[in-house]
């Protein structure tokens, strides 16, 4: 047995700044539509992100139908397939995952978890959402533009992205995509500045950085990364708009198209790839880190155990964030860049595996001999760990130049990144929604529907993406609407592809159940009470559920401990809330 003496909570320093002046809504419009309350903005962000996400899901169905049953669907031409791929990838990565993690969870959780009344700049925060919304409208409008959306692939590589052979290349498609991205970045910057300043400067009394829940650490780090990575995409987008609209040649070398020499010449397509991936690789971690943080908190709560190695977890997040800025060119091994670069970037890529592995070990050690409750958030968190580990391991292979070169542009890569940055973060998001929905709605999500949703999604995702590794290994290329001459792959690939496609349809259908659950439970769910999971973090200690405007009523919370005091010997309950001064009487709490 461990010797344990409860430590006195200690004095908490006085408030440094007076309580904020909040904007108080005066009518329906300012309360629900142009709201400056981070909680409302969070729901607006999440709702919009989930809606566009559904579009991306339907697109993945269409692609899978084509791949599983080639020559069956006459409306899916090769051009249409490229358009589906592009919009699917871009929506999933940027408009769904980035917006949902940072705009959605960031807005909801940051002020609540650190004990602030709202974001630092609620008005700018509101603008952030509406610009994001505009970006989404522009993006969706490209489906209805003449020529349709761009089919350049989500990486938008020039020169092909703006040439006539690519769908949308000489029509509005690519323009709308670039404009939408530029808007997204402007909107995100407004939100991102808020999240960073709020975490740094608006914490409650007693809330030190090292007492913050890992969710906040992760969202914070991801936001800092986004603020430094998106500029590269912004600049790449502006330069490509110049090339496309004004005929400049930033990215365009001398080209011959249909026997005619184009006006372009002297530009550098590789420059675009560098700019894109300077953004693109950090982007992978921008969606992975919040998932890391959320999963850490979920397993700690639902296993009733202190997170293992909190400090290590924090430093791992920060180090992963920093390292991810010097690995971008592992996406460019086959681009024709200087081979010495490949050597450097392979090394840095493999180094990132170290802090990442630390995180996985720490999750497992947190679970070790924990009191594991197989609640739905926990199931999703466990599924995340498995899936992420799986995708991370294939990533180790792909990080090596010699292994990547033959596998690059095969379905193996598609399987890898769907595991690691597609399925895994989505699983974390589901877990987070099941976990925090009670705080947002005051109702529990239905358990039976949740279980069905979980098992279909988890098993289904494996059914889709596990065989896909094999499909890629035997040589089926990526971004091909059909294989054509089958002589280089076994015949059985056809059946496998059909199987994958059917699994994809089933998984997609299961998401309808999830959406139904979200809507149904608002009215019919069980009342959750304020703290259904008996969690320690501040968002569960609000005076009412859902939390009121300004979050805390009269008195701001005062924090006495870190976020992971579960099963503390001697305490009355198996958790100690962060604002619980145990074993002391509340002291100076009202000051």
């Amino acid at each position, binding site marked *: 047995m461990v010797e344990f003496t409860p430590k*006195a909570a*200690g*004095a*908490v*320093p*006085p*408030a*440094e*700044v007076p309580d904020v*002046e909040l*904007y*108080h809504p005066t009518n329906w419009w300012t309360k629900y539509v142009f709201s400056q309350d981070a909680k409302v903005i969070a729901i607006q962000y999440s709702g919009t992100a989930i809606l566009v996400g559904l579009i991306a899901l339907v697109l993945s169905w269409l692609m899978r139908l084509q791949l599983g049953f080639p020559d069956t669907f006459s409306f899916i031409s090769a051009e249409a397939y490229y358009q589906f791929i592009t919009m699917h990838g871009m929506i999933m990565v940027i408009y769904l995952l980035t917006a949902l993690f940072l705009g959605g969870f960031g807005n909801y959780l940051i002020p609540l978890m650190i004990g602030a009344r709202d974001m*630092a*700049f*609620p*008005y700018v925060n509101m603008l952030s959402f509406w610009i994001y919304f505009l970006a989404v409208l522009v993006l969706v409008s490209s489906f209805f533009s003449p020529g349709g959306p761009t089919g350049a692939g989500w990486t938008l590589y020039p020169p092909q992205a703006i040439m006539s052979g690519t769908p949308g290349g000489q029509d509005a498609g690519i323009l709308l995509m670039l404009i939408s991205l530029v808007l997204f970045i402007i909107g995100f*910057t407004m939100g*991102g*500045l*808020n999240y*960073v*300043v709020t975490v*740094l*400067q*608006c*914490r*409650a*009394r*007693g*809330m*030190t*950085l*090292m*007492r913050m829940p890992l969710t906040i650490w992760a969202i914070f780090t991801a936001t800092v990364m986004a*603020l*430094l990575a*998106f*500029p*590269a995409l*912004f*600049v*790449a987008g*502006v*330069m490509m708009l*110049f090339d496309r609209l*004004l*005929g*400049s*040649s*930033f990215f365009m070398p001398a080209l011959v198209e249909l026997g005619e020499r184009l*006006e372009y*010449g*002297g*530009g*550098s397509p590789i*420059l675009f790839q*560098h*700019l894109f991936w*300077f953004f693109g690789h950090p982007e992978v971690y921008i969606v992975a880190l919040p998932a890391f943080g959320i999963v850490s908190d979920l397993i700690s709560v639902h296993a009733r155990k202190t997170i293992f190695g909190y400090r290590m977890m924090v430093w791992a997040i920060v180090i992963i964030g920093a390292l991810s800025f010097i690995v971008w060119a592992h996406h460019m091994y086959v681009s024709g860049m200087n081979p010495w670069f490949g050597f450097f970037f392979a090394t840095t890529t493999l180094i990132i595996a170290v802090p990442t592995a630390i995180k996985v070990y720490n999750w497992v050690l947190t679970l070790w001999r924990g009191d594991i409750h197989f609640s739905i958030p926990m199931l999703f968190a466990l599924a995340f760990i498995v899936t992420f580990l799986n995708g991370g391991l294939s990533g180790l292979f792909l990080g090596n130049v010699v292994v990547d070169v033959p596998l690059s542009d095969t379905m193996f890569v598609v399987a890898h990144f769907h595991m690691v940055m597609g399925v895994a973060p989505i699983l974390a998001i589901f877990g987070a929604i099941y976990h925090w929905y009670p705080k947002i709605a005051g109702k529990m999500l239905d358990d039976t529907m949740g279980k069905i949703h979980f098992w279909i999604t988890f098993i289904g995702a494996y059914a889709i993406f596990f065989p896909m590794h094999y499909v890629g290994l035997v040589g089926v290329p990526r971004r091909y609407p059909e294989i054509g001459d089958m002589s280089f792959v076994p015949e059985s690939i056809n059946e496998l592809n059909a199987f994958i496609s059917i699994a994809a349809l089933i998984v997609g259908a299961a998401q309808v159940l999830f959406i139904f659950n979200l809507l149904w439970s608002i009215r019919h769910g069980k009342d959750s009470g304020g703290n259904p999971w008996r969690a320690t973090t501040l968002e569960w200690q609000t005076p009412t559920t859902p939390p009121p405007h300004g979050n805390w009523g009269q008195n701001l919370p005062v*924090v006495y401990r870190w976020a992971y005091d579960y099963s503390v010997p001697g305490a009355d309950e198996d958790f100690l809330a962060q604002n619980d001064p145990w074993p002391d009487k509340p002291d100076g709490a009202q000051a």
Partner: protein
Amino acid sequence: MTDMPHTDSATDRPTGLGGIPADWSSDQTAFKNVSWGKAMMWIFLLSDTFVFGSFLIGYMTVRMSTVVPWPNPSEVFALHIGGTEFPLLLIAIMTFVLISSSGTMAMAVNFAYRRNRKATAMLMLATAALGAAFVGMQVFEWSKLISEGARPWANPWGASQFGSAFFMITGFHGTHVTIGVIFLVIVVRKVLRGDYDNETPGFFTSRKGRYECVEIMGLYWHFVDLVWVFIFAFFYLW
């Protein structure tokens, strides 16, 4: 009351470098006595640095990748006055004007904290005027080059990327200056109206007016000037 992980108040913190870990391990704020607005502006400027950095790196890369010789900036940007050719004369004046505006801005911040409304407003107006003059000269420079045949897609002197990068980068910087001028005027209006003395709540934000807004405005302005120095060095002098 044992085990106090942090210092009691913002006043008795360790000073110097040792203060940094102390501040970052304390509660509430990581940057002590730095207001939210100022912290936000600094972080925004960091992000904007990456934007300008990417623009400049992009420009340097195409300058290397292009196969046509790069035009000589000191000839392209020369002014002919009375038969003599002055290389980079206009750019030199523009640079001088913009740097001077940083000086007036810094003085405005000082007077703002002394709550001298008149002097603050006058100095900020001077800053705005210098900024507007800069943009005006840029318009002149653009129209001169355009009249000589420079376009974003081609120019008479050499590599087409010269014109593309020129219009893109100076245009983006000029937009920054223009936005700065607009905000300067807005802040001047608030200073003159006494919003910062009376702590009038903002129309959209309902936050109290503070003289610090002048300083935050100043941070942005100095940044825009600093960026110009880099553009000047990398685009015009190189």
